[in-house]
């Protein structure tokens, strides 16, 4: 028997946890550490269950962006659509763009989806809640790994010269994921209460696709250049694509600013998620 004096003590009280930020931060870090194993298990569970009931399997990780990329390639090559001069060959430009865009949309949808599908578990067991988000992050990395093969194939096909700058694309893509997940996670608490949020995200993402330079080069003339300046996804997506295809970063200031913003946003989304979950659980089940 362990001595009761040495047992960990947990206190539950109604006060807002924001009033004791140091304690909150400590418990967040503690739970993050505790989450690792569970997150891995959940990830393995989800992935193995997914492919057991699917024929096309990993194809789903890159089929949608390839198809939508194809559409634009055909439209452009037949001169139905003229989207202007791109930095590299248009097909290369579009394929990399749509794949990166898919990474971003997956990231934005992941948190709400993960929390929603774990509803029953959340309502009944007190496990470190970070694990769900971490597992969702692993899942995105997993599908990114599959996409990397396709990206690699595309780069080889278009005979893109290998450069050390390409390695920097990895942190750039991670930043893209961070931004997406931060937005998704920030909307998760409200999204758990109101289903409108989920539908709105779906719609917003569709619209967002067209105001982000995914299939067309970033405009330079006012007012269309605002698409690049005000849209936080643009610098990250353009940055990652330039690093992959050219090996250089054109506007590092914007890129770094948005990256910093994403990290800060992620942290706040995390705090919000943590604080909101007990309230959500209380409202959604009994």
């Amino acid at each position: 028997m362990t001595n009761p004096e040495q047992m960990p003590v947990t206190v539950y009280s109604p006060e807002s946890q924001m009033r004791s930020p140091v304690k909150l931060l400590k418990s967040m870090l503690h739970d993050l550490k505790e989450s690792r194993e569970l997150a891995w298990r959940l990830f393995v569970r989800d992935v193995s269950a997914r492919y057991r009931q699917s024929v096309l399997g990993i194809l789903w990780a890159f089929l949608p962006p390839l198809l939508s990329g194809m559409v634009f390639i055909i439209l452009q090559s037949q001169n139905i659509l003229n989207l202007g001069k791109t930095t590299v060959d248009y097909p290369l430009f579009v394929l990399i763009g749509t794949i990166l865009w898919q990474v971003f949309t997956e990231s934005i949808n992941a948190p709400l989806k993960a929390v929603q599908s774990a509803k029953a578990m959340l309502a009944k067991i007190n496990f470190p809640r970070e694990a769900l988000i971490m597992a969702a992050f692993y899942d995105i990395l997993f599908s990114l790994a599959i996409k990397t093969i396709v990206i690699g194939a595309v780069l080889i096909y278009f005979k893109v010269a290998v450069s050390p700058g390409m390695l920097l694309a990895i942190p750039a893509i991670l930043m893209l994921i961070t931004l997406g997940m931060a937005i998704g996670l920030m909307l998760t608490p409200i999204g758990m209460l109101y289903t409108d949020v989920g539908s709105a995200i779906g719609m917003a993402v569709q619209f967002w696709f067209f105001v982000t330079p995914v299939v067309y080069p970033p405009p330079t003339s006012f007012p269309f250049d605002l698409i690049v300046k005000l849209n936080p996804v643009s610098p990250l997506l353009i940055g990652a694509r330039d690093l992959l295809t050219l090996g250089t970063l054109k506007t590092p200031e914007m890129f770094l600013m948005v990256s910093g913003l994403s990290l800060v946003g992620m942290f706040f989304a995390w705090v919000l998620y943590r604080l909101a979950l007990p309230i959500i659980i209380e409202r959604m089940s009994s």
Partner: protein
Amino acid sequence: MSDTLITVDNVSKKFCRSLKKSLWYGVKDMSSEFFGGSNSHNELREGEFWANKDISFEVKRGETIGLIGHNGAGKTTLLRMLSGLIKPDKGRIEIRGRMQALIALGAGFNPILTGRENVYVNAAVLGIRKKTIDNKIDEIIDFSGLEEFIDSPVQSYSSGMAVRLGFSVAVNMEPEILLVDEVLAVGDSNFIIKSLNKIHKMIKDNGTAILFVSHSNTMIRAVCQNALYLEKGIVKGCGDVMEVTRTYELDCMDKRTSESGQKIYKISSDKERRIKKVELYNFKYELQNVFKINEPLVIRVYVHADRVVENPGMQIAVFNEKKECMLSQVSFTDGIQFHELLGSSSIDFKIKEIPFNTGVYSVSAKFIDGNVLNSLDYHIDACQFTVDCGNRVGNEGKVCLNAEWIMENC
């Protein structure tokens, strides 16, 4: 005191009846939580009610406490606050030691994966390390009794099987505090006994403190020393398990007697010869329907015959609340011959000492024509009575006889 593992101090929790309002309050609560605003939790808002109100109690190590109350009394709310799933609106909860909640067994089970794979997932959700499970997997599978099915997908399991597997994982964690919420109800009787033994072993070996929710008083009495009785979110009784479960039982009986409303089910096959009514008396022939154990009881059946019944007979049966037959006697079989019957009469069934233990009982009477052994009229649930046998620590059976106890030197 260091031996106290759970301290619940004046804890209250409110809930909202309307979903729309509840969601909106959720948004408000979230923002006040995030901005660290003064908690507005103290007052009830429109449409809210207290699901738990001013609850205080303590659980020491090695102690088992039963949580009882009607559906919706706030038991699960309390457990969910204790396990940290939801925050109290008032008061303070202090937990010392690792807690394991058997609220949802098999949480995180994915139906497509096999039982074995799910053991690992479930264990991870409960915070058990993979190494621990690797060492214990055989023990877990053995305890669940599902060796044959362990490599089949869980979607092919019955609900009982899934619960068995979930329970087997959870109890192998060996926590300092265990919350058990009505989870054993699904298992078959062998598994329940096995589980109860396991729980007893945990108390003995590890000094585990247990909070046990069940609707079965027998189970509560078998496992717990103390009990907490919740009624509409308020503590109605706390203390010795026998006393508290008794209060609960009496309340249940009152509720049921008032609810049942004497709905008599009649099967009449002869309109001219029938039962008029059935009444209960004490031996002074005063109407009575609450008795103490071993008190005398008269069941009187009023019958009426427009046409003569040459060889009348009567069958009296008494059923308990689970509709188990406690007694069924036929006048003929008891060697009683009544005289010819015409017009109105009454037939009494006199019991010198009621043997039944605490509970609500219903009486059925069947009026029989002995010559053709035909039922003339049959009243099911003709009337009801309650037996209250006071404080009866240890007297648990269905009947309680006025027996003699003798001690002699030999």
